[in-house]
Every structure is written in C-alpha cells, then in structure tokens.
C-alpha cells in the first residue's frame, strides 16, 4: 500500500470540507463524516507505525532483562491507543461519561498487565537490600 503525504492531506481536506458542508445542510451527518476521516487517517497511521513497532520489539528482544518486559510494554501501548481512540469516539458522539469510564477501564487493565513487572522489581529490590544487610 503506497501512502504519501499528498494523499493524506487530500483525504483530510475532503473530510473536513464534507463535514463543514454537512454541518450547514444537516447537522446529523457531520459526525459520521468526521468519524470516517478520523478512522481512515488513523488506519493509515497504524499501518505506517507497524515497522517501527516491530523494530522496537526486536530491540527489546536483544536485551535479556528487557526481553520479558517488551511484550507487556507493547501491550500496554496498544491498550492505551485503543482506549484513547474509543474514548475520543465517545466524546465526539457527545457522551463524555462513557469516555471517562472507558479510560478508567483501560488504566486498570494496564495496571493489571504490569503487576508481574512490579512484583519482579520489588523482588529485585528486596534481594539487593538483603544482600547489603539492610
């Protein structure tokens, strides 16, 4: 899939112009146009970010300490992106309370995901303290 900046700009401008026109004619259809433009552009962003994420995962894999944390960190980034997208969609539709609940759920899920890392860190710290005789 060949993507260039000109196409992205064209897509964004068509979406913005359509949303502006429909706002004047019939307000109900402004939101779907905005959503379509946002979803299209974000899909391209995610597709473009694919190689970067894979490279970051490879770099994480080189380090034996960070290797096991890499999966957790990447999944946490994914959860953050998904909850942010979902909450933005909810805010666009005029329901900020659902957006806030979704963000809270995402934060709790990330905390749950990182619990093994936290326990590993605490074990390491307690091991160091016991070695030093404290």
């Amino acid at each position, binding site marked *: 899939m060949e*993507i260039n900046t000109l*196409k*992205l700009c*064209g*897509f964004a401008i*068509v*979406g913005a112009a*359509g949303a502006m*026109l*429909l706002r004047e*004619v*019939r307000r*109900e*259809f402004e939101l*779907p*146009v905005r*959503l*379509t*433009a946002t*979803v*299209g*552009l*974000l*899909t*391209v962003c*995610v*597709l473009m*970010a*694919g190689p970067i*994420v894979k490279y970051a995962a490879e770099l994480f894999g080189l380090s034996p300490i960070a290797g096991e944390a890499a*999966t957790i960190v*990447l*999944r946490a*980034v*994914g*959860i953050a*992106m*998904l909850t942010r*997208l979902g909450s933005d*969609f909810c805010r666009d539709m005029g329901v900020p309370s659902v957006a806030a609940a979704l963000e809270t759920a995402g934060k709790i899920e990330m905390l749950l995901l990182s619990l093994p890392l936290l326990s590993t860190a605490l074990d390491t710290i307690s091991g160091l303290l016991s070695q030093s005789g404290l």
Partner: protein
Amino acid sequence: MDVTLILKVIGIGFIVAVSAQILGKTGRDEQVTFVIIAGIVAVIALLVGEISTLFTTIGELFGF
C-alpha cells in the same frame, strides 16, 4: 484509507438532506424522521467495518 468511503458518506448526507427538505415542503413530516434515521443507519453500517478494521489492526500490531 479510501476516499470513496468518505465521498459515499457525504453523498448519503446530501441525499438525505435534500429528501428531507422535499418531504418537509410537501407536508410529510413524519417521513422526514424515517429518512434521516435510515440515512444514519446506512452510514453507520458503512463505518462499522472500517472501525473494526482499525481496532483489529491495532490489536494485531501490539500482540493481542
């Protein structure tokens, strides 16, 4: 990213707007509501697939 999708959504919006105006002028106000609802449902049906693709792509990228 497909420009035809956004053009489809804009087209449906304009068709619904014109239809609603014509129906409103001819005194069929109750049908205006149905036309608007049908238009919104059609647009959402178009959008759901794209949103699903976006979320699936993010999920696959970050290892869900």
